[in-house]
């Protein structure tokens, strides 16, 4: 039972008089306005978006009172409305904000609702890096209205939310904050290799056989540490290169793949890498497998990045930082694991027990992930 119903009746209890039994009222979501602007030294351009329904509430657009707001009713008052709403926002110093000049309004749909778009340009005194923004639309009529503001210059973007309590904000476009953004994306990249068990397991599986070489039907230990490092470097670099390519392609919206497919292939890659340790097909060329499957792992990382949201003004920087973070995470795994593997590589316990048994377990996990992801069932935590 919806709480809404439980409360519906209270309306009748509390208010006498006609009940409003609306069967169709448009657009039932919270009220939002969107203000986006790009500033240069003494120039600003951008647009303000307001729901037509909110404009109607504030400025009574329905001229003929027939219950519908038409494009004609809006268009006829275009310049008046543009000037009214642009007077409610300001960009630039309080004393002398930029003089905003409206452009032609247009219509767009957001969340199934029609929005009027008011483009503007403006000339100002030199703006500097501290941009003051004023936003005072709708609050008098709707205390839950929110103004979502995004201001950027050529390299930094800042966002904030305007409320009835906060109608003015100063956004700091100083680019040193860029370092924070870089740091935060690096750390989320590293964090995600760390908690992304499937990526980690794939890498570990490849590393398991990097300290040994197949010769005849036997695993032979790699002679020198240099050899092991070289084998590992090739694998890790190939993996990195591959997933960087697809991560970038996906994050920039160039390629999109269904997540079930991506996740299933990643699970397959874990199982295949493990099988390759049990019945080696590629030994010296493990890097090729690392590259091929790395392409799919990149799509997997991309979904995380999509969830985080790439700041539009710093897309490439964020993307690069995230990649760096993933690399650092990987290197930490390698640095921890490789010396251990190298030390135990000669023991029979490693080549005859740990390597095959470990790979077998990994293979089973890989297949279970595959089953789970392909069918949507829950078998093991992933």
């Amino acid at each position, binding site marked *: 039972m919806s709480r809404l119903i439980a409360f519906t009746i209270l309306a009748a209890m509390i208010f006498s008089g006609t009940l*409003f039994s609306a069967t169709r009222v448009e657009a039932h979501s919270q009220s939002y306005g*969107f203000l986006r602007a790009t500033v240069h030294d003494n120039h600003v351009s951008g647009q303000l978006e307001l729901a037509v329904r909110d404009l109607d509430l504030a400025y009574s657009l329905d001229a003929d009172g*027939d219950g519908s707001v038409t494009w004609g009713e809006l268009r006829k008052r275009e310049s008046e409305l543009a000037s009214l709403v642009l007077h409610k926002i300001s960009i630039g110093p309080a004393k002398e904000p930029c003089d905003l000049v409206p452009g032609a309004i247009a219509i767009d749909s957001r969340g199934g609702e029609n929005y009027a778009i008011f483009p503007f340009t403006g000339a100002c005194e030199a703006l500097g890096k501290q941009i003051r923004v004023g936003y005072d639309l709708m609050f008098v009529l709707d205390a839950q209205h929110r103004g979502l503001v995004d201001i950027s210059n050529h390299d930094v973007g800042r966002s904030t939310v305007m409320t009835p309590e906060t109608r003015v904000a100063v956004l700091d476009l100083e680019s040193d904050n860029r370092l924070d953004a870089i740091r935060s994306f690096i750390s989320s990249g590293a964090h995600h290799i760390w908690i992304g068990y499937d990526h980690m397991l794939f890498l570990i599986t490849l590393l398991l056989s990097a300290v040994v070489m197949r010769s005849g039907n036997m695993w032979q230990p790699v002679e020198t540490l240099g050899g092991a490092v070289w084998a590992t470097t090739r694998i890790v670099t190939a993996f990195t290169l591959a997933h960087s390519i697809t991560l970038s392609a996906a994050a920039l919206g160039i390629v999109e793949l269904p997540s079930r497919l991506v996740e299933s292939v990643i699970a397959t890659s874990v199982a295949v890498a493990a099988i390759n340790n049990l019945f080696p097909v590629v030994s010296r060329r493990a890097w090729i497998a690392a590259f091929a499957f790395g392409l799919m792992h990149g799509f997997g990382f991309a979904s995380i990045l999509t969830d985080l949201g790439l700041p539009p003004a710093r897309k490439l920087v964020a993307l690069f930082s995230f990649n760096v973070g993933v690399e650092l995470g990987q290197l930490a795994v390698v640095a921890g694991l490789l010396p251990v593997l190298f030390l135990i590589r000669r023991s029979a316990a490693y080549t005859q027990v740990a390597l095959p048994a470990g790979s077998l377990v990994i293979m089973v996990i890989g297949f279970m992930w595959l089953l789970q992801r392909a069918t949507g069932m829950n078998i093991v935590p992933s």
Partner: protein
Amino acid sequence: MTHRIFAAAVATLVASAASAAPYRPSDDATILVTVPHAAASMQTAFRKSQIALAAKPTDLTLALEVARAAIRDGRASADPRRYGQAQAALAPWWSMPDAPMNVRVLRAIIRQSLHDFAGAEADLDAILDIDPRNGQARLTRAFVRQTVGALADAKDDCRRLPPSVGAIASAVCWLRVQALTGSAGEALERLDQVIKIDGKADPLLRRWAQAIGADMAAMLGQTEAADLHFSEAIDGGDIPTLVAFADHLLDTDRPAKVLTLLDGRSEADIVYLRLAIAGKRLNDARTPHWIALLADRFAAAKAGGVQLHLREEARFELEVRCDAAAALGLALANWKIQKEPNDARLLLQAVLAANDPAAAADVLSFIEKTGLADARIRPLQDKIAEKHL
């Protein structure tokens, strides 16, 4: 970090307009927004009061009139904007700790609509301290308490309702608590009697009682009885009741009926969610449109820092996007705020989907403590119990 992610989300959202396609309609007759014909005259009257209030914002009588009209419509149409408008009308009194009593009643209602249940209860407490026989305040508090799972306190309020609220409202209040504490069968039987006896009651009250009865029947797993109750309950066409019926249809595997019931009926978030769920089950061609629209709205809510949609969003992640981890996070956050059977059930579903039985500890102990017995929840409890073995 959270702050940064949040800021990035706002930025992405605000800027996403860049990728959309703004246009200038070629025809002046293109309709951008419609107010239903039936509602148009109400709308005009409401607008007149609103304009009058704008000229004299401290006129309490006028402000109460506007706020009441907005809430009334917000209820019937499940339109969150209306509550914001009601709040705006009450702005001069909104932050006053000792606001006039009639402002406080409305403030409590608006606060509960914003899921500020503690704030709502504080207002109602203050009213009842002064006027213990205020039926509206006590009934409202009883339901706020039911929502947050304070069932003993809710029962206390139901017991102390003055006769002025009427026999049906009293009975519904009391019997719903009874149903929430494991005696839905008995409660439904008595509710049916009360509805039958009080044949002349306000039709709105009757429909409400029928909707509550429908839920009790569904709780007992009695599909046909629930259908029967809903058939009268949905007569008024108010959106929350239609949505509750749609949920019942989804539970009993009748998604096609949901599309007939709801398509084109309303633009409310809660309606689109049911359309998306039903559409997905039926592979309906409109489903991607509904999904995109909901995703847009949830993204805007997130960027605006609005937390009203946790329940809806959790269901969206669980049933539409099939992202169990996201659904579990949202369902847990929702459970902290609301504790109705729907919330318990959603959380258990998310727990099972995410295969994280430990996350069910709190809700399971709540169910045990209150004695809640719900045919829709029981199988979920059993499944989780199996996992613990």
